[in-house]
């Protein structure tokens, strides 16, 4: 008959010579924790106990929903700063191989990465034996249409609207994440030894005349590099600042949009749009959230009523234990 011995037993039992003076009794401590008697909140989910929850949810959600809905619907009035977006549809900026095809070090102004971009950028890493700056598929496919907005006055003479190019990107992106290669010399010098992305018309140091908005810190570029989450997306293009409190930013009238067409989207059934929008505390216009809140609040309220009925019917059974089926 084979018996099983634990190594521990053999060892422990081996020399029992140890004096049993400090004999430790195996009696377990009678503490609430060890005896699993810790005071506990024991929620019993019955109609009676959760009734208030549903009503409270209903009472909170419906006003919130209405608030959101109203806010969202008000957005169309073009007051305050107006944001000008370009929108692309069916453009998969979130494709895995596309998303990773960039070199953040290079964009952060790292000199070594500038001349030797990450392998992730392949096959847009080098062109004609020169490193591409900025490398990768994202940069290569940068949106490069130009949009200009004119107000057609009464005299049919178009007045150009001032479109602000700056502060359209995240402040942290512009100031921390994206940096031009260091140096005192001109931007062109600093980008020396690199070549422009294949699809670009101009090299990176010629994106804008403003030195504060050129090179890697060009905000159009930064905005493009923040890859969209979904295939139908918009990106902030320009800012139309309100001039004074007295006049609307974009007064009613006829407008003229001039598009310099550089960016083909037909091949992938894409569409381009231009959107003008104001922004509220909850971002752009989107009725979904408000409706959802109202709906859920109502459902919750309704459930509350149902549970109230149930609670009335089964009042006795839910409060005491003598439930006989």
């Amino acid at each position: 008959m084979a018996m099983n011995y634990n190594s521990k037993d053999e060892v422990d039992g081996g020399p029992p010579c140890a004096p049993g003076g400090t004999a430790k009794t195996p009696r377990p401590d009678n503490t609430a924790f060890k005896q699993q008697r810790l005071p506990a909140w024991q929620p019993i989910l019955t109609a009676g106990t959760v009734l208030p929850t549903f009503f409270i949810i209903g009472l909170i959600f419906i006003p919130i929903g209405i608030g959101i809905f109203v806010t969202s619907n008000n957005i169309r009035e073009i007051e305050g700063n107006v944001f000008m977006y370009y929108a692309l549809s069916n453009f998969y900026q979130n494709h895995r191989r596309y998303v990773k095809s960039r070199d953040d070090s290079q964009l952060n102004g790292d000199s070594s990465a500038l001349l030797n971009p990450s392998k992730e950028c392949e096959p847009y890493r080098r062109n004609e034996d020169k490193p591409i700056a900025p490398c990768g598929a994202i940069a290569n496919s940068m949106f490069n249409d130009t949009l200009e907005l004119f107000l057609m006055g009464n005299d049919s003479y178009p007045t150009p609207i001032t479109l602000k190019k700056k502060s359209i990107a995240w402040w942290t992106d512009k100031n921390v994440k994206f940096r031009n290669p260091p140096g005192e010399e001109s931007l062109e010098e600093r980008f020396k030894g690199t070549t422009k992305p294949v699809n670009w018309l101009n090299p990176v140091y010629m994106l804008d005349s403003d030195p504060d908005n050129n090179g890697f810190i060009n905000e159009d570029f930064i905005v493009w590099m923040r890859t969209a989450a979904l295939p139908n997306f918009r990106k902030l293009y320009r800012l139309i600042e309100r001039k004074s409190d007295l006049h609307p930013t974009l007064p009613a009238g006829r407008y003229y949009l001039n598009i310099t067409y550089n960016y083909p989207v037909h091949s992938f059934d894409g569409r381009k749009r231009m959107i003008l929008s104001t922004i509220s505390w909850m971002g752009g216009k989107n009725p979904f959230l408000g409706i959802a809140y109202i709906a859920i609040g109502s459902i919750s309220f309704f459930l509350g009523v149902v549970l109230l009925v149930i609670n009335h019917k089964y009042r006795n059974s839910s409060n005491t234990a003598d439930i006989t089926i």
Partner: protein
Amino acid sequence: ASGDRDDDGRCNYSSLLACGAKSSRSPRPAGRHRVVVPHLWPFRDEYEKLSGAYVNNRIRTTKYTLLNFVPRNLFEQFHRAANLYFLFLVVLNWVPLVEAFQKEITMLPLVVVLTIIAIKDGLEDYRKYKIDKQINNLVTKVYSRKEKKYIDQCWKDVTVGDFIRLSCNEVIPADMVLLFSTDPDGICHIETSGLDGESNLKQRQVVRGHAEQDSEVDPEKFSSRIECESPNNDLNRFRGFLEHSNKERVGLSKENLLLRGCTIRNTEAVVGIVVYAGHETKAMLNNSGPRYKRSKLERRANTDVLWCVLLLVIMCLTGAVGHGIWLSRYEHILFFNIPEPDGHIISPVLAGFYMFWTMIILLQVLIPISLYVSIEIVKLGQIYFIQSDVDFYNEKMDSTVQCRSLNIAEDLGQIQYLFSDKTGTLTENKMVFRRCSVAGFDYCHEENARRLESYQDDDDRADAPGGAALGGRRGSGDVRGPRQAAFSSPMETDVVPDTRLLDKFSQITPQLFTPLEETIQNPPLETLCIIDFFIALAICNTVVVSAPNQPRQKIRRPSLSGMPIRSLEEIKNLFQRLSVRRSSSPSLSSGKEPPSGVPNAFVSRLSLFSRAKLTSPVEEEGSRPSESPVGASSSVCCTETKRGNGGAGVTNGQVGPAAGQPLASSLCYEAESPDEAALVYAARAYRCTLQARTPEQVMVDFAALGPLTFQLLHILPFDSVRKRMSVVVRHPLSNQVVVYTKGADSVIMELLSAASPEEASLEKHQLTIREKTQKHLDDYAKQGLRTLCVAKKVMSDTEYAEWLRNHFLAETSIDNREELLLESAMRLENKLTLLGATGIEDRLQEGVPESIEALHKAGIKIWMLTGDKQETAINIAYACKLLEPEDKLFILNTQSKDACEMLMSTILKELQKKGQACPKQASLSVDLLQLPAPQDSELRAGLIITGKTLEFALQESLQRQFLELTSWCQAVVCCRATPLQKSEVVKLVRGHLQVMTLAIGDGANDVSMIQVADIGIGVSGQEGMQAVMASDFAVSQFRHLSKLLLVHGHWCYTRLSNMILYFFYKNVAYVNLLFWYQFFCGFSGTSMTDYWVLIFFNLLFTSAPPVIYGVLEKDVSAETLMQLPELYKNGQKSEAYLPLTFWITLLDAFYQSLVCFFVPFFTYRGSDIDIFTFGNPLNTAALFIILLHLVIESKSLTWIHMLVIVSSVVSYFLFALAFGALCVTCNPPSNPYWIMQEHMLDPVFYLVCVLTTCVALLPRFVYRVLQGSLFPSPILRAKHFDRLTPEERTEALKKWRRAGKMDQVTSKHAEPSADQTGRRPPSGPSAVFAMRAATSCAVGQGDTSVCETALDLRCSDTEASQVAGPQKTKKAGSPPSLKLK
């Protein structure tokens, strides 16, 4: 055991033995046997040749060394399929084409898991290493050939062939053959508690031939060689021989072997030669480590893991196909199909193929890597709480529950069948002498019964004093004080004699014996019988006598008490001097040549000695303690003889009847089994006191006859096959060789002497005694007493010598020894004369009936498997409420298979007739695999089956029928079952019914059953620790079982199953977020979450709450669970984790992930949000959903839950914020920089998270609410009880029970009797056939409570018995219990 041994070897051995072991053969090569020669100069060459292959005594129980730790640990860990899977993923991620994450990141979870386990293993191993080192460096005295004396050496340096000298209380370093003991009798006691936990001393004997040496064995002169079997793990076997230089051989047995790890007790010093060292010792070979069992729940979970794999494959295929289709539309758009570095474009098909693997990496979390680690942690926590339960603490034994298996705690909650041993498990195993029958007269000991009743009340008192008396004597010895006390509580020791019997004792005078020859015709036969009976009670055992003040010092001479005891040393000296006067060992008196080197004078002395005994009716050896040890032997004997005649009064006058009593009460009896002790105490009550025992003689102080010294010729120890034990002694009064046998009545009755023609009248007398005794025995058994028969046999010297010679051959054989010994015993134990019978009560343990009742209510079927006889078993079964008085009892007790089959089908038919009233059971008969528990209050049946019939029932052809039959019965009692049958029964039920079984037992005979069952529970009682060692859990009392199962089992099961389900839910819900996103990124395998967050989400933020939940969750309080055992059925039916539950959980997970994805999706649709900013609210909402889901599922939440949940949330936000602040360009392409910060300032983020969480959890919440109000499960209803005041509670409990009964009745009637027709087994024809063909008797011994059934049975019985009648009489000595009613 020796089946694989080559014929050659066997031949050699048998021939050797046949020719008296005189053969000069060159030393055998080691081969399958082991040859040990002393590790000394003369044997140097041979030693090197032989012992080169033997390991030394260094042990290493560690698995790893410093060098191989990493590779070996990894190797072991990758034996787990799950780890291999994750390794595969890691490797996959290194393939550039399919890489989904950064290469290094995928390794992280695996590395973390492997590291945690490796650290755990490493620490465990290091602990072992330290203990090994400590043990290896223990010091012992080894004989050094250089210095020619014993020097201190470390254990690790001991080698095979070394001589070792050990003193008292030292631990034996290696298995060695005992060559010398300072004990005058050549014995030595060892305590094996380190090996098997049994704390009673075991006796070991010096190798025959060496025992007679007076001086210590001199290693230099030792020239023998030892040949023994190869190392094996059988603790109870050691075979070999010692070959002296003159080629003479002496057999070696386990009696000669000192085992490593045991402690020398009671013996000043011993010397032995090492035969097995280190890892070849029996102790180490037995060290197989803890068992690994896989629980039912885990098996369930594993199948669901496989479902998850399937799900994963489906999802990945979807991704692959989707990507292929998507890409085929844009194959040449370089925006989307980014070319390879070398500029070529991947075709959509190939891209789809790659995508499959990418998706596997991406969605890998679906297979929960942390599940296994979490399960292990949770189980540790559960075990911790089981062991901390103060209710399991037993003050008397100072012990609590032991969890020896760490991974099957949840199985405790699913037990359907319970197999219990009786003695020591249900009963206390405190044997109390109740009554006896001598020579056909019953003595019912009424006073004794009254005394026992008084103990019933204050049980505690009975247990304390022994331990107290032992306390403080010897540092190490009295650790087991309290346990020892249990053997000698006053309840067991103080037997009040029966007055009637005492009267008869007064007739006893020494004169009865002197004129023995003349008075043979008109003897006070009864008086003789009484004397023999009590002598048998006193000496037919293996009880060791010790004095309580010297707990482990055996009492050798009663006379010592009459002398002023000066010191322990002096007593020892006395013993040594006295040791000269040892009698021969049995083998010597058989006429065999004494070993060389022993002076001839010794032999003559012996013969003189024994002759002296003939003439001395009363012997008192101890009267001359001061005699010189080596004095002329003959003169010693002479003086003794003289002294003996008149001596009783001279020096030891006080050791008469008068002084006997106080002396006797100060004696302690240490018995191997409590029955023996009870009988010895009973004999003592009649002033037949066992005074001392040595290997050669037993001293009994018989009040009327004075002290008697029996020369102990032989002991045939008890074994479960023979079910009896015998001692062979030379009776000091009659000087005859007498065999006293004591054993189970069924066995003894068969061995009683058949008709001896010349003594017809005596024979007749014997027959009446036998009949009367049998009646008494049945009577005892009906009262639930354990019965034993006592018998004797007188042998002539020649008969004895003849037997002894054969027996010696059996003893010295190496192969087939067991069979030969059994045969030899059979030759001795026959033609016995019945003396009487005893009835010993074994009281039920506290709380057993209540526990059994509760377990019954919990839907557990309880089987009692016992070796006791039928009547005893039935009575105990009634007493412990296993059987109710109104139960119908069916008894299966047949002598043949056919009869058994017939009887079973008859009973089945009977039951089915009844069963038709209750349609529930109709479906039972056909599908054994789906046997539901027939819970029927109307028809309660119990089945009793005896061991012999069980043998038939267990045969393949009858198994089904037997199981079907048992499924109708609430309780099954198997009596007269052997250990093997016990395990076979468990195996049968477990294998065929596919149920969860639990076996509980306390003795070595339960070990196999314990090992076979799903859960084995050992009761750490008085029968040693073997059962405990083999068990998964050890409790100290049976009643603890109810809390262990009903409360902890239920908790462990529900906790773990809910946790596992939650794990599946959590992983599926989270991973699906990634999956849904694939539909919007062209199935390109993009993850909208940063990889670190993804990994930490599972590894950190959501791992602790489920673990806490798994350890601390309490659905119903312990009190309610104990009060409502019905709640246990929840676990039996696996209600917490059904396949359906799993799929519902998955469905919910899918729903929640859909909500969690699409609420943010619709919110941010068309906006300028970027990938990782989009992922942030998804993650955050998922975190809240997952944590709050757990809160909804939790039935009780303590501050620990709250703390863990809050800290999970806090750590998530802290991590996200810190990561967002610090990671500027790290971890491309995901860029968490400032995302969380942006979101924390954005109200939409909060709105989205709140909405998502609410919508996701709403359905489950509503479901739980509706469930709680409209259709609460029993568990939920029971939960309400915890909120009530005590008064309300009792009221509610009453209502509950009433309702439960009502429910049962209504549902019974409601259920249509769908499939009862045509489903009956074909029992009809076979029954008829069986009746016709019955070749042996079929006996259904219906108890009185068998009512209608008896009609059926009776007809079959009579018919069967007619056929069987003649045959039965032919079969001599068939158990008389087979009476027909």
